[in-house]
């Protein structure tokens, strides 16, 4: 192998190693930060992880929203029309949050089986239902 070619090979090797390293880090970051989505039924059935954050979607049950007058604590119940899941959130709810509306919450379960949300998403369209929620509601609707 000529010195020129060896040099070029070394350069290409270096570049490839760098890219491989970057891709490795990328996949690691992806694995660490990915969050699964579950319906309330799946959460109640214990399919959701206990030790990491995940997202849960469903409709906010009518008359279930309870606000603590002295703090930002809000409690409400989510449903996919089969099971109920108690949710707790401290903070400001999005403009579109209301009873009977489909939402997605991010957080994890506590020991009492209550979902403690760190983020609540309701999208900015009044006819909006998160596709995940629509999906998880579908089997139920077709059963009726």
């Amino acid at each position, binding site marked *: 192998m000529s010195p020129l070619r060896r040099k070029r090979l070394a350069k290409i090797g270096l570049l490839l190693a760098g890219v491989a390293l970057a891709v490795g880090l990328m996949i690691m970051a*992806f694995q660490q930060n990915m969050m699964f989505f579950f319906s309330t039924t799946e959460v109640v059935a214990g399919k959701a992880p206990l030790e990491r954050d995940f997202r849960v979607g469903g409709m906010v049950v009518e008359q279930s929203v309870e606000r603590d007058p002295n703090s930002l604590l809000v409690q409400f119940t989510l449903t996919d029309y089969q099971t109920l899941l108690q949710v707790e959130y*401290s903070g400001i709810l999005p403009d579109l949050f209301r009873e009977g509306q489909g939402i997605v919450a991010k957080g994890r379960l506590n020991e009492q089986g209550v979902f403690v949300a760190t983020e609540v998403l309701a999208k900015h369209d009044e006819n909006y239902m998160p596709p995940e929620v629509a999906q998880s509601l579908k089997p139920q609707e077709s059963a009726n």
Partner: protein
Amino acid sequence: MLGELGLFALILAAGFAGLLSVLSLWGAHTAQRGLMHLAPSLALAMFSFAGLSFLLLIVAFLQDDFSLKYVASHSSVHMPTLFKVSAAWGAHEGSLLLWALMLTGWTLAVAYRAKGLTQLEHTRILGILGFISFGFLVFILFTSSPFERLLNVPEDGLGLNPLLQDIALIIHPPLLYMGYVGVAVSFALAIALLWQGEVRKSALAWARSWTLIAWVFLTLGIALGSWWAYYELGWGGWWFWDPVENASLLPWLVSTALIHSLLVSEKRGVLIGWTLLLAILAFAMSLIGAFLVRSGVLTSVHAFATDPTRGTYILLFLLVVIGGALTLFSYQAPKLVKPKPMQLLSKETSLLMNNVLLMVMAASVLLGTLYPLLLDALGLGKLSVGAPYFNAVMIPLTIPLALLMGIGFFLRWKQDHAARLTQALWPLALFSALAVLIGALWLMPDLPIMAVVGLAMTAWVGLGALIWLIQQRVRSGHLPNSALGAVLAHSGFALMLFGIALSSLYGIEKDVRLAPGESYSLKNYQLQFVSVSQGAGANYLTSQARVKLFKDDQFIRELQAEKRLYIGHKMPMTEVAIDAGFTRDIYVALGEPLGDQGAWSFRLQYKPFLRAIWLGALLMALGGLIAVFRRWQMRSKTI
């Protein structure tokens, strides 16, 4: 009647696009001068009819023609005239028409600016742009016509989504689309060059100007969208890694890489294959963006009504255009590439490394955006990655990028020497160290390691550009013509890094409950909640909160944050109050009433140097513009 005329004009535009594509490509293939001379006129006809169609749509909005389904769904008699006009591109159908109009506009501009191209290249480029225009126009005609009629004409329309009734949102989509569509020009050139199997230097120079213009539009469009999201959505962030934001970032990252690799190819005749590949990928990203936004596969603020046929069409179009381009590339590229040795220590190698970093960034954004969709489509589970993933990937990649950006100016083409480079870099190293030291002392005692890293990157990139500029001025007695834009753009990037680092590391975000008279402190600012009063605007009801802002207990001003309820819309809208300044923003968003004692929830934020982010983006765009004009000036002098 006007609706039918609009539709007819659209059909004619599509017809001319088809003609432009077929006649130009055929003319170029068979070398028939007559056909090749036709291309500019066909481009003009295509643009004129697309423009007429768009104009008629706007007229329909102005006339409140609710017999058109699109007008009825997105306008209303109560809306201000300005928003009636902008509603024309406020939703799917109209914004696609605007997209197509801009594509035909770019084609027209290309038709009359051919300096540096051979006639064959020019005609092929027009033919390819005609083909892409045809694809979009047919897409609109068959799946998304804004001229569809309603059988039962309503008295009044539904009105535009209140979120979109905003000045920034009038200009954000046109700017962004100009950028998205503009990368089609360098794509068309890449195809034309691959087709003829020969790459000439002046063709690359031609492409660089066009790519720069598209990049300037992308930069401005993204920055404007980010600013809008900050003050309008009521969440208080400036970037959410929302898939649609990512869709605009992808072509930006790739075209940034493309601008730099075009420079290398033009100056040194190397990396030709890579440059052509980037031109193809930049347009691929722009089409993927269109697919993401327009197909309804996304859960996003931007996602409009969903329709699977639209997604399928765009996906097919993407496969044909990009698949075809990549196939052509794999056949032709080996012919074009003349392996030339590149030295490790040289400007071209450092630019290549910067390119690789930008492409890894683009790949990681693409992975984070598409992989969850892919899994979902295959029924393998629903997952998502949020900001933590993107931050975890982008921050470590930005550090070497910034390092290279600072060195880049000082490196020589072909072959540099370590000893010379070290000598050239020591002023930069010295001044950067000094700047970081001053910055660190100023930030003490609260000094996280990332703040030091952020300061170092800012100083290295920004001072690198400035010191180089000064040295050039001293040495040659005048400002270097070509690189002034680059210096400005790099300084803008430095400013942006500064804003990102400080606002995210030292920003404070708090959701709090405040009773009337109660105060909350953010650093040395105090916010005192006075009261909430009810009122009404032109087409909304409002709850308006008065909040007094104090600095070190000195009264500064009163802020008014609102919660509005637009007539005809069930959803409330948060109108935030911001006391803006270069060194810090104070942000107040009104939440909900809590209990019956008059207390409300508030989202309060203190964001230092947040404006540096958008100011930096503006500087970058300005730098891009200057680079384009300087090049045109120089070329008109030399020719």
